[in-house]
C-alpha cells in the first residue's frame, strides 16, 4: 500500500484529496510496471495521465486556498513548488504526445512523480499541518 497514515495532515479536504491522489498514482504505477505489453496498457496510462493533469491542478489550488485561509507564511514558496510540478507534468505530457506515447519517458515520469509526491506530502505539506496545529486552526476546514 502506497499511502501511509503518517501522511495525514488532519485537514479533511486535503487528506481526502491526498488519498485520492495516492490511489491514482498507485494505479498508474501498477499499470506502468505490469508485465503487459506497452500496446496493451498505453490506453490506461494515457487515461490516468489525463486525469492527473486535471486533478493535480485542482488539488494544488485547494491546498493553496487553505494555506491562505490560515495565514501560512510559507505559501509563496509552497506555491512555487506546486507551479514547478504542474509545469513538469504539462511538459512531459506534451513531449509524450509528440513522441508518439513513448514508454521510456513515461517510466521516467512515473519514477520522479513517486519520489516527488512522497517527499512533498511527507515533508512540505506536514509543515502546513505543524503551523495549523501551532496556531490552533487545524480544524477550521473540518
Amino acid at each position, binding site marked *: 500500500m*502506497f499511502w501511509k497514515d503518517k501522511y495525514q495532515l488532519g485537514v479533511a479536504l486535503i487528506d481526502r484529496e491526498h488519498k485520492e491522489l495516492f490511489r491514482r498514482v498507485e494505479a498508474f504505477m501498477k499499470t*506502468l510496471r505490469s508485465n503487459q505489453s506497452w500496446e496493451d496498457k498505453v490506453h490506461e496510462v494515457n487515461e490516468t495521465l489525463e486525469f492527473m493533469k486535471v486533478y493535480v491542478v485542482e488539488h494544488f489550488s485547494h491546498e493553496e486556498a487553505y494555506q491562505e485561509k490560515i495565514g501560512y507564511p510559507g505559501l509563496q514558496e509552497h506555491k512555487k513548488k506546486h507551479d514547478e510540478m504542474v509545469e513538469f507534468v504539462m511538459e512531459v505530457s506534451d513531449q509524450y504526445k509528440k513522441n508518439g506515447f513513448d514508454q521510456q519517458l513515461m517510466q521516467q515520469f*512515473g*519514477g520522479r512523480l513517486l*519520489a*516527488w509526491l512522497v517527499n512533498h506530502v511527507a515533508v512540505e505539506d506536514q509543515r502546513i499541518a505543524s503551523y495549523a496545529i501551532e496556531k490552533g486552526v487545524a480544524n477550521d476546514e473540518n
Partner: protein
Amino acid sequence: MKTELYTPFLDATRQVLQTMLDLSDIAERSAEQFDEGQENLEIAVGMVGDLEGVITYRFPSNTSLNIVQILSGMEMDSVDDFVASAVSEIANIISGTVMTLLSADHLTCDILPPVQGRPDSQKEYTQHTQCCITTSIGDICLDIALNRA
C-alpha cells in the same frame, strides 16, 4: 579528508532517508569500505552560487531497488528507467535539503537538475570529500567536489 561541508551533506542525507523511508539505522561508513563490487547508479547534481561544483551520488543496485520498493510498496527487480528516475529525484531532494542547511550558514547556492552518470571533469576542487553511509537497505556514497565562488 573531511571538509567543513561534510556535516550538512551527512545531515541532509540522514534527514531525507528518515522522513521519506522511515530509516533510523543510518551510520557513517568510510569511503574505503563502500562496496565497489556492485554496480552503482551514479547521479550527478551540479551546484552554483557561493559554492560551485558537483555532488555525485553513488547508489549500489540493491540500495536503489530497496529505496523504490519502500516508496512504492511494489517489488522492483531491476534498475530500469522508473527506478533510476525515482532515485535521481531522491538525490535532488537531498541536494535541496543541503541548500537549506547551507543557507543557515549564509551560503546561498542553487542546484541543477540531476543527471545520470559520473561527471567528466578534470577540474580541481579545494573542497573535496566523500560522505558515505550504511543502512539496513544498503549503502550510499556522496562524492562532494566544490569550490568557493
